[in-house]
């Protein structure tokens, strides 16, 4: 084939590819934007709803006018959100810290130490990942009652930690497993014991995974509803989900904009947390999951 013809055919193919690329790009953006719209529309509607009042909502409006920003302070006061926030933060954070710590330890042990029965222990962790939580409701309630722990924050911290442990251990194990042997051997040559290796060498390398577990578990705890409902009945000790849900049957029964405002207040911290830490979150999530 002569070079001229060859060059021409390459050029033709490139032009065709160029056109295809442009059409492809437009199509790609169309799909992305459509998907984005579908993903975000409900959340945006909720925000919009929180600024309306009932007549506007029932007239079928999509956008509030005039906006009622006072729904927010009203919602804040109505549900005693300050107290709810404090309880939720306390419980979610405490169990998150416990989960991260315990699953880091367990992940290291399962991922890097050969010990008898390791498979069985890991199997138990996997079971934790798969069981439906309602199974634990009544037995735990009765136990907590015997221990006098009902209506305390500890009543939630314990189960939440357990629920997060399975996921946390799964991720941490994968991550630890993927760390290079050389590091460990070098540290051992330096005379470090197991704990030293763990604390000083390996753990710092797992920051993304720790962040992932922390955020994921925090999220799960923040939103948890069934156990919070059953174990905590004193108003003062309530966490956000039950407190918000209680609005549904309170004097704001039927006042959907205020409900929406309280739902936004409820969701905002989590979203903020996610936006701030999303890089670590994604890194850790995928790294921990992919290392398996």
């Amino acid at each position, binding site marked *: 084939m002569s070079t001229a013809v060859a060059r021409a055919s390459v050029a033709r193919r490139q032009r065709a590819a160029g056109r295809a690329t442009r059409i492809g790009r437009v199509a790609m953006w169309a799909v992305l934007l459509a998907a*984005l719209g579908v993903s975000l529309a409900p959340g945006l509607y909720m925000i919009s709803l929180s600024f309306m009042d009932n007549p506007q909502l029932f007239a079928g409006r999509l956008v509030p006018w005039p906006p009622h920003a006072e729904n927010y302070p009203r919602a804040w006061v109505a549900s005693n959100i300050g107290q709810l926030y404090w309880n939720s933060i306390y419980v979610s954070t405490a169990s998150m810290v416990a989960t991260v710590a*315990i699953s880091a330890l367990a992940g290291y042990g399962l991922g890097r130490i050969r010990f008898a029965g390791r498979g069985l222990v890991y199997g138990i962790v996997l079971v934790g990942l798969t069981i439906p939580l309602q199974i634990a409701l009544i037995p735990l309630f009765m136990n907590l009652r015997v221990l006098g722990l009902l209506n305390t924050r500890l009543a939630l911290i314990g189960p939440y930690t357990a629920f997060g442990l399975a996921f946390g251990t799964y991720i941490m194990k994968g991550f630890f497993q993927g760390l290079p042997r050389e590091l460990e051997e070098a540290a051992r040559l330096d005379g470090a014991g197991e704990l030293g290796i763990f604390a000083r060498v390996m753990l710092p390398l797992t920051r993304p995974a720790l962040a992932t577990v922390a955020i994921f578990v925090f999220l799960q705890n923040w939103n948890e509803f069934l156990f919070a409902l059953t174990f905590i009945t004193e108003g003062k000790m309530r966490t956000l989900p039950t407190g918000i849900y209680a609005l549904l049957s309170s004097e704001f029964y039927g006042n959907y904009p205020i409900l929406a405002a309280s739902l936004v207040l409820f969701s905002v911290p989590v979203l903020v947390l996610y936006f701030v830490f999303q890089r670590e979150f994604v890194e850790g999530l995928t790294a921990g999951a992919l290392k398996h």
Partner: protein
Amino acid sequence: MSPAARRRWRSNLAGYAFAGPALVVLAAFLLYPIAYSVSLSLHEWDGYTPHWGPFVGFENYRALAGDEVFWRATWNSILFVVVRTPLEVGFGFLLALLLNRRLALRPLLRTLFFVPVVMSLIVVTIIFQRVFEPNTGLLNTFLRAVGLGDWAHPWLGDPATALPAVIAVSVWKNVGFSLVILLAGLQGLPQDVVEAARVDGANAWQLTLRVITPLMRPILALTALLSIIGGLKVFDLVFIMTRGGPTYSTEVLATMLYREAFELNHMGIASAVAVILVVLVLSIARLQTFVLDESPEGGQA
């Protein structure tokens, strides 16, 4: 003791020292309830009297085997998973492929797609109730506005469409999760293989089908597994939206468990359902890892 034995002893000790706290917590809060449930599933109890009722052996399981609601719930649970997982993973994969370019906006887009995952279920169900309402809901209003009024339908009120509607909401909520994992997986692919194929003249289609997808198999499998497990356990979403109705068309195993325990006072039967659910989830998880030749301990990083 020989040095080897001593090392093994030290390893075991170390292993259990590290895994110990987790074991204790899991035993107290997970294993104990499972044992409790297995035991309770062999008895009758109404949940009100202080002590369990009589031991009935496998009677509860036999009753379930003859209960059409149970088979309906099982069928719905499986259907839920079989429909939702491909959609969720499929859409997630598609979006991941689209986002897998040198896009400046990629981190932002990825974050935005994840928002539904982060939203609380109470919020989601309230909103979608407003979306699906037959007369003034957003979906039907939209359909009528664009001239597709014939497609307007009582989505949650019709047994034929209730389950698909609930599945749709679940897909909507979870696509972001799959997207994030798959996107990271795509970016972790060995670029040289992909480049080589591209240089060989493969177009986008062939590239995707023949090169990328096979490379992504383990990650796709993992994403699918997480989706399947979540799908079998689903409760909150279904319960709040439809309570398992109408006429059991959206009843899944978890909602049946709740109904039997807290509305019909059949604690024994509810525990049996719980046990069956656990066994089902474990088997499917095991089956999938077996089929895809991935052991939980090894790994193909």
